[in-house]
């Protein structure tokens, strides 16, 4: 045995540490660009960082990252303008 560094339980930061958690989703959030006022309340409340913030200056509404969005529905519940709704995932 010539190994020099001790073997230790160390992990490093990566995206997708628990896999592509979008797979867990049974319903998905959909934004209505008409209704979105780009307030980013939804962005703030997403526990999964699965919302790319809206940008008023560039007039861009929010975008979901379905690779990781678990479909909790918080964004839909919390959007003050009812701009998000949840849809059942289809197989």
């Amino acid at each position, binding site marked *: *045995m010539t*190994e*020099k*560094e*001790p*073997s*230790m*339980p*160390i*992990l*490093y*930061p990566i995206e997708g540490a628990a896999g592509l958690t979008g797979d867990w989703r049974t319903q998905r959030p959909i934004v209505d660009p008409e209704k979105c006022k780009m307030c980013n309340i939804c962005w703030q409340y997403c526990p999964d960082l699965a919302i790319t913030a809206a940008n008023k200056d560039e007039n861009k509404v929010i975008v979901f990252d379905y690779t990781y969005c678990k479909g909790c529905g918080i964004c839909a519940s919390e959007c003050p303008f009812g701009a998000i709704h949840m849809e059942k995932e289809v197989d």
Partner: protein
Amino acid sequence: MAEEVVMLTGNHSVSEAVKRVKPDVIAAYPITPQTAIIEYLSKLVDSGEMDSHFIRVESEHSALAAVAGASWAGARTFTATSSQGLLYMGEWVFWTGYARLPVVMAVVNRCLAPGWSIWVDLQDSMAFRDAGWIQIYNKNNQEVFDTTIQSYKIAESKDIALPVMPCLDGFVLSHTSSKVILSDPEEVYNFVGDYSDPIIEIDTGKPFAYGSIVMPDKYNKDRKDLMEAMERAKAKIKAVNKEFSETFGRTYGNGLIEKYGDDDADLTIVGIGTMADETQQAIDMLTSEGLKVNSVRVRTFRPFPTEDIIDIAKKNHKLLVIDRSVSFGHEGHLQMEIESVLKRNSIDTPVIGKVMGLGGEDVPYTRIAKVAKENL
């Protein structure tokens, strides 16, 4: 400051060694008979004589936790405990061992309750022989001082990366004063070296996560490496003992065991701690009576000095193993492990086991001699 020759207790010997290696962080909780170690260190820190942080924790569990935290952050650390305190930090004893943190913790051996007793036996540290710590048992205060120093050099080498537990018999060493040569602080520090290239070091610039959930394959990889590090530690301890002897002129057998008397004895008394030191007195007495006896002191119980035990058993005719600790429902610790080594290596030398000195029972050399005669 150069070498000093002083009259010192075992506890002070630990503190003087610790002072010389300059730990960054110390955390400890008082318990008889360990208290003087940390009282003295508190004083050195508060007076500015030592440039360490001393964390006055609220329990032993937190003492070792704090020290482990500091070790993760790349600090040189120290703590000390005893008996119930060691049990109370038990979760962390395993944690530190498994985490490969090079913590040094002096254990002042004291028996376990109930009944309540503050005197020596080795039941406390022996309870942690599985935990991935190197354990070095000492025979006198000079060795206590020297071992504490050596512990850092062993623990902090990257190919070992294991915590070390220098053990000293409660009261018998901890509170008894005897002559100790305190080596020059600078020489000691140079011998140990600084800890500027730590085993592990938290860095906000380079995040990592330590101790998350692991799958069995990784788990086994880490454990295998721990097992192997223990194996490597045997050579390391020997080497450090040798280097120490070259530097300071003091040596303890080959580092793992210390032999006394000539080979080819009819009876070899194997022991540990101060009882093994006192055994030498018994050997002198018996030898003067014309008996062919010698003795072996097991200095490191972990890693277990398998090869040396084989050697001893081959060169002598019978072993009398004296334990100061026992596994209830089986036998004494040294006895069982020595027997297992001999069995594993098909060595016929008979082994007789005796458990003595529990709960602080005094075992004078005359009694050891008597038992030896009964078993010759």
